[in-house]
């Protein structure tokens, strides 16, 4: 006992005041319940989709399919143009996210760290991108894209998908940058870092969790974007969601389920990939303990 007590007392220095056991137990229980609820609400709909995607015979009185088949998968996977859509989606989306990061992160940095004339106007305009029905924005853009000869091109599709990522890629990292204590920035300047070195070596790593969140949301927004992509890219460039929309109406619900499962794969993979970045680091609103 006495051997263990010494390091324990050391440890206590790092902890805030100890709370009564009953509160700790209560907090842990609530945490557990919330966690289970989250697991339930994430996995059950996904499981349901998967079930539907393999459903053969599925008629009303029965709550679950009465027979199973891989027929829908066969139909989807062998449909002409699918491979093209997959390749298109999986290549365009990362390009859009990367481009969005390059264009928006400096703006996010400025918005988060500095006060300048017209800052509110900038924030408001960024916000207003998402405040109106997106379709009106696209329709307004189409004449411009025509004029620039970008209709029906990959560049046009990239531009139209980029728009949906701007809010995420500026707003969220801006709060991450703003949360970094000034003393960390001052200390870096003091150690001899130029403005750019401070940004690169201190700000960027510390804002990483917020940037990761922004990147995930941007990826999903761009990946799922169908309206604008259809308007601008058709008929040459039909990404996965565009193809799904055009086919869903002609086939039974199981067909859409297969598509939905296929569309979910990148999201799931992405979440697993960035999981550790989301909850690491400091100086971010997303820091969890």
């Amino acid at each position, binding site marked *: 006992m006495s051997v263990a007590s010494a390091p324990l007392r050391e440890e206590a*220095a*790092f902890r805030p005041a100890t709370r009564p056991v009953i509160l700790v137990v209560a907090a842990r229980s609530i945490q557990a319940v919330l966690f289970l609820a989250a697991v339930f609400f994430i996995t059950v709909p996904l499981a349901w989709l998967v079930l539907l995607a393999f459903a053969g015979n599925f008629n009303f009185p029965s709550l679950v399919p009465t027979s199973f088949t891989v027929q829908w998968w066969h139909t989807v996977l062998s449909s002409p143009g699918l491979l093209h859509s997959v390749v298109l989606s999986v290549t365009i989306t990362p390009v859009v996210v990367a481009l969005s990061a390059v264009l928006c992160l400096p703006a996010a940095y400025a918005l988060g760290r500095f006060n300048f004339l017209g800052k509110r106007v900038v924030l408001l305009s960024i916000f207003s991108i998402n405040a109106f029905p997106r379709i009106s924005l696209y329709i307004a853009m189409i004449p411009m894209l025509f004029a620039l000869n970008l209709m029906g091109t990959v560049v046009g599709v990239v531009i139209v998908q980029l728009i949906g990522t701007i809010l995420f890629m500026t707003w969220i990292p801006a709060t991450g940058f703003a949360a970094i*204590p000034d*003393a*960390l920035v*001052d*200390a*870096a*300047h*003091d*150690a*001899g*870092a*130029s403005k750019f*070195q401070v940004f690169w*070596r*201190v700000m960027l*790593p*510390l804002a*990483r969790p917020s940037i990761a969140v922004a990147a995930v949301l941007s990826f999903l927004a761009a990946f799922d974007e169908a309206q604008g992509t259809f308007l601008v890219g058709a008929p040459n460039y039909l990404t996965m969601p565009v193809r799904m929309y055009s086919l869903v109406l002609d086939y039974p619900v199981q067909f859409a389920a297969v598509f939905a499962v296929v569309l979910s794969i990148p999201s799931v993979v992405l979440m697993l990939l960035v999981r550790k970045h989301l909850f690491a*680091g*400091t*100086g971010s609103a997303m820091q969890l303990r």
Partner: protein
Amino acid sequence: MRTEPLTASRGSALVLEQVRKAFGGAVAVDEVSLSVAPSEFVTLLGPSGSGKTTVLRMIGGFIAPDGGRILIDDNDVVKVPVERRPTAMLFQQLSLWPHLSVARNVSFGLELRKRPKTEIRTRVAELLEIVGLADFGGRLPAQLSGGQQQRVALARALALEPRILLLDEPFSALDTKLRVELRTFVRSLQREVGTTTILVTHDQEEALELSDRIAVLRDGRIEQIGTPGAIYDTPETGFVAEFLGAMNFLAGTVDGRLARLSGGITVPLDAVPTDEVGAGRVEIGVRPEDVIVTPDPGGAFVVERVTRKGYVNELFLRSGPVSLRAYVGKDLALEPGGSCALRFGHLHLFSARPPGGEADGEAPLATAPIDALAEMTNAREAAR
């Protein structure tokens, strides 16, 4: 306000010449002049809002002065940006970079200077050894206690080999025991390394213990500057007297060689040089430790309250409208209600100030303490 002769600047490590800074309309630093010798440890002491941090940040280059000059080793650095100033700052808040290991925090500045890898490695090991954290290089800051983090921050500052080390209340976030430990450590380290150091603090004890000289700041001005002993023993203003140590102020009127307090109490001023006594209203300053208390049933003062301060007892004494505090040995047998007679070991004379303590242009009358014992007598009792 005292300013130092500007001719002292040659050979000084740091010189401030009439440095000014205002934020909006509010003057934060007002014509501050100061000259610091190489290896000297100077403390800027003052209450919150007196402009200490602003002065320090102007020296470090974080804030540009509105006017005046800042010389480091006789070079004007006002135009030199933070990253190229030969200064290093230890901040009040914990300011280690949380994403870098302890060792990387210390080596950050050296990496930016493109020093050879092997040199960096030995230097970091050396510095962590000096601050007593040799085995902690691989840890992240969050795995260290507050005191350990400040020691790493100190190593990080020293790694820059600054000409001037700037400390902005670096101990204030720590608990008492750690604070005392760390400041003792900083003092001996500074003696050893010999880096010219400017400390900002509002803690008089810290200032007295650490400094070669203390500059007391008030409302953006240096009110007095001198060695800790000189400032404590001969405060030039009531403000300085109260800020460093405690002081009783007794309002009275000079009458020949006597000061008459209200309630018929008189204090002889025999020891004060005649030309310094002047006439009219004065404030008599007496430090609580200079009040000599003798239990005396016929004494003019009554003990109202006794507070234990650990090593001494603090007595709250009253005689009519006159009240004062005295520090006495713990074995002095005086309980609340007891009577006593008083003598003063040292007196300080200040020109009178209006009630509330706001005294503009308040000037010391007697700048030296009055050493002879001054016995307080109650005139009414003496007449009886």
